[in-house]
């Protein structure tokens, strides 16, 4: 076999590898689930094969317990949700002038994303913009006068995290009315923007590694400036957390 025939091991960039390692180690495992096996609590390992199927990290003996939860491995209603939320609609694109380049700087090289689910919509956030994932808690301090998406303040590690209902942020008004109560939907809070904001979501999935060309980047600012692009292989929307944080801060 010639030297060129050998398959080389593809590694993540140094910075991405270290950040991914640190985030896994520092993931706060829900203390209320002591009886679940480790592989249920475990944060999924980074994978470099973006065509790999989402894995359900549940052993047979606990299968019954998790059947009630949304199945991560099913791309639930992805196709129709892609129409409603995860893609840029033509009219949205044409409402504003096209921008020269909306590709974020973190996507210039290979990057990793954490996938998560919100009312059946598959979303992804870049790991470099992620500050942690914590279990959902009802212990939020409500703040009157804010938008309906604002669930309240959560005290976490000495900081006040503003927790948002991600579904309310991303869905159009008519679909928000059909949402189940918050306490029935939420399982996790994704911390971003240095922990100032928390995105409440149904569940988190695996970490995927992407090349920039695997994302269909937005080419114009539309009604969803927080949408960095879509990942066609995954039927998934990629969030630009920086823009989303700015948008949330602006109310």
């Amino acid at each position, binding site marked *: 076999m010639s030297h060129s025939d050998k398959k080389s091991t593809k590694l993540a960039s140094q910075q991405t590898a*270290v*950040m*991914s*390692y*640190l*985030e*896994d*180690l*520092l*993931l*706060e*495992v829900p203390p209320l689930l*002591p009886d679940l096996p*480790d592989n249920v*609590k*475990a*944060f999924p*390992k980074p994978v470099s094969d973006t065509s790999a199927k989402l894995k359900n990290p549940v052993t047979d003996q606990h299968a019954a317990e998790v059947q009630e939860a949304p199945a991560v491995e099913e791309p639930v209603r992805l196709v129709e949700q892609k129409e409603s939320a995860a893609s840029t609609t033509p009219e949205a694109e044409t409402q504003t002038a096209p921008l020269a380049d909306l590709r974020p700087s973190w996507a210039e090289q290979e990057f990793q994303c954490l996938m998560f689910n919100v009312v059946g919509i598959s979303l992804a956030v870049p790991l470099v913009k992620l*500050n*942690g994932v914590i279990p959902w808690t009802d212990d939020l301090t409500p703040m009157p006068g804010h938008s309906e998406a604002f669930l309240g303040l959560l005290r*976490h*590690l*000495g*900081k006040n995290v503003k927790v948002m209902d991600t579904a309310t942020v991303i869905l159009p008004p008519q679909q928000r009315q059909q949402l189940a109560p918050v306490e029935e939907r939420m399982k996790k809070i994704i*911390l971003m923007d*240095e*922990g100032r904001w928390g995105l409440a979501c149904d569940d988190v999935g695996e970490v995927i590694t992407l090349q920039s060309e695997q994302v269909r980047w937005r080419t114009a600012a539309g009604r969803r400036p927080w949408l960095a692009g879509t990942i066609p292989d995954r039927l998934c929307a990629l969030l630009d957390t920086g823009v989303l944080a700015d948008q949330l801060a602006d109310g």
Partner: protein
Amino acid sequence: MKIWSVANQKGGVGKTTTAVSLAGLCALHGYRTLMIDMDPQGSMTSYFGYDPESVQPSLYDIFQQTTISRQFTHNLVRKTAVNKLDILPASTAIATLDKQLGAKSGMGLAVVNAIKNFTDEYDHVFIDCPPMLGVLMVNALAACDHLVIPVQTEFLAMKGLERMLNTLQMIERAKAININYTIVPTMYDKRTRASIDSLAYLREHFTEHLWKSVVPIDTRFRESSKEGLPISHFRVSTRGARAYSALLDELTTTISDESKAAAR
């Protein structure tokens, strides 16, 4: 309870000496003090007469547990020859943790969770860190209220300091926290150009977090380790002991200010 980690990604800069000296001074002042050895080399463990090759139970046992009871953590602690100064020893086996655990979710917080069991028993906890990034270093940084970074006053140590600060920044980002830190120039020898130049470099580039004074080179540190005593309990009037005493004053003032700022 205040938790201090002593770390640098370069070896031989005085981490163990700094941790033991500060812990000894706290004990001398009447504070109930615990030292945790998280360095696989087990220097701190050896310092107090325990053998890292054979000591059991040790820090290693914390990583074997899924839930850690109060009784369990208390059984890990050993007495030292110094009143009010205890140690949770390291065993050589902790060197295998990275290979065994990989990046297993949540293992960077195993020590944080174990230390919570000591809240009522100790006033100060000093953690001696390993000189490389891994599950132990991440645990130590995630657990601490304040990080002390000893830096030997010589050129190669400056690079080690930059690596350490880079690691610190990434852990802050991963955990969405701020870790306050103090850089402590160590092994300062005013007779050498290397020490003078290195200190000048530190003062020029790291002013904000740099301790204003230095820990001088002092052969009494070696003698005190041979006796298994912190410098404060060996020769409290030595230059080295006086330097660490001044450092402790500065650190306790700093952490008090940080606590007040956090409470506001």
